């Protein structure tokens, strides 16, 4: 019941315009861009749905994801950050995985719905 309301609020352009300065500040403070990561790289991937979504990524995205993970891990081991010029640019920090996750989640929901159908005699 709350989900449609939440979606309507989140997609409202006026609301987004108000929140944008706060959200940019939050993203910069959280610091993942200093390690060259994207937001979607940080999602906890140890669930069946996200594993299936990762399997559906194309080759370029998969390679990029693996490279960013290795680079960030190495930086973390050596207690370093990337130089400012190499931080993730905002235009590169797009949702490459979340749409796929939503797609897979909807497929699971559909399957569960079909598997738990009740029959009504007409």
């Amino acid at each position: 019941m709350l989900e449609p309301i939440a979606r309507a609020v989140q997609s409202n352009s006026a609301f987004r315009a108000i929140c944008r300065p706060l959200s940019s500040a939050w993203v910069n403070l959280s610091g993942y861009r200093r390690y060259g990561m994207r937001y979607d790289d940080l999602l906890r991937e140890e669930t069946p749905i996200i594993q299936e979504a990762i399997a559906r990524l194309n080759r370029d995205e998969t390679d990029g994801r693996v490279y960013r993970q290795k680079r960030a891990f190495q930086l973390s081991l050596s207690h370093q950050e990337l130089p400012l010029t190499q931080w993730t640019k905002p235009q590169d920090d797009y949702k490459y995985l979340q749409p796929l996750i939503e797609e897979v989640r909807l497929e699971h929901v559909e399957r569960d719905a079909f598997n738990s159908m009740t029959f009504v005699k007409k």
Partner: protein
Amino acid sequence: MLSYRITMFQSKVAAKIVAPIASRAYASVASAPVVSTANGIKVAAVAGNSDSPLASVSLVINAGSRFETSESAGAAHYLKAFGFRNTQTRTSFRTVREAELNGATLTAETTRENITYTVQCFKEAVPYFVEVLGDIAAATKFAEHEFKDVAQLVGFESLSARSDPMSRALDGIHQAAFRSGLGNSLYALESSPVSSGDAVRQYAQSALAPGRIAIVATGVDAQELANLVSSSRLSSLVTPASALSSPAASFTGGVQQIYDSASPVSHYALAFASEPASAQSLAALLGAQSRIKWSSGVLPLAKLAATDGFGIAPFSFAYSDAGLVGVIVSAPNTRIKAAVEKVAATIQREIASASGEAIQRAAAAARVDVAESLATQQGQIHALSNIALGQTAATLESVDDAAAKLSSAAARVFKSKPVAVSIGLSQNTPYVDTLGF
């Protein structure tokens, strides 16, 4: 016992073949009107048996393997396998589950000329399935993650076709006879350049032109079907920028394909060029398959096979601009040469100059085959799709026309140079130019 049967047969032959009983189902297919929707999609339907609650609807696309180019080799096979997969409206899972709930059967098949997606269902479910077929035509996603599953299925089908000597022989016959166009393999071979959903989508875009699509149905009223088609996504299809084309079929006789095989049984296929309308009747004239169980009757090739101990099977293909008729001979490696030479001699001696009784027998057999096929939903769909797309259709009328010209057709066809395919121990291969044609 034997003489009694021959007497019976002779007395039936002495009386002329009885005039056909006009039946709603048979007459309807040939006389079914073909309606064209606003954007050029052909719609044809046959009302069928009013007692039966069953109906079937098919989406037929004139984009079979003959329209493949070297860049799209195997695309028709992939496009067939992408039937009923994820579309913009519903997932493949939902399509299948809803079909199961409706008690419907979903089939996808491809021939060298057409790709057909068929739904067999109850009459009440036809509007829903016309919508599904419209979504398949206009909104299939061709997703990459689906392509992996499809490629596995296509690979398995191609491998099992290649391992079956009959399919391999027929594929080889077409390649030997027609080279390109109709000569393209029906299956996606190892050399197929199709390796992504995008490649299939590209082929589908040129294939799904309104002029190449027909919706045919049995158990549905034609006008109702046309209305359903107009209100589905099919009405949004437009003529694409790139068009599919196929070279006109030209038969090259005297060519032989040789495939080596480790099997102890060798197979040899022999095919003649014929008019598409008479291909089925000529195959019946070859007399390679007896209609009487455990007996070869008076059929020359069947008797020869029974006495000499080899296998023989006839085949015939009728395309829009070419026809093939022939036999596949199967025998152990040591006996294949003798068997093929005897079959070739029998064809030239007895069948090319067949007349009277043999002609009548063949005409009756072909007529029964067509009538039996038109009594089934699948056969009616097949005939209707050929009629709707302007291709050669097997109807009772066409078979009667062929019967009138059968003996002259036989003399012409069975004296011409055939093509051949041999599968087996290549050192024992008989060569087609030594067979006397």
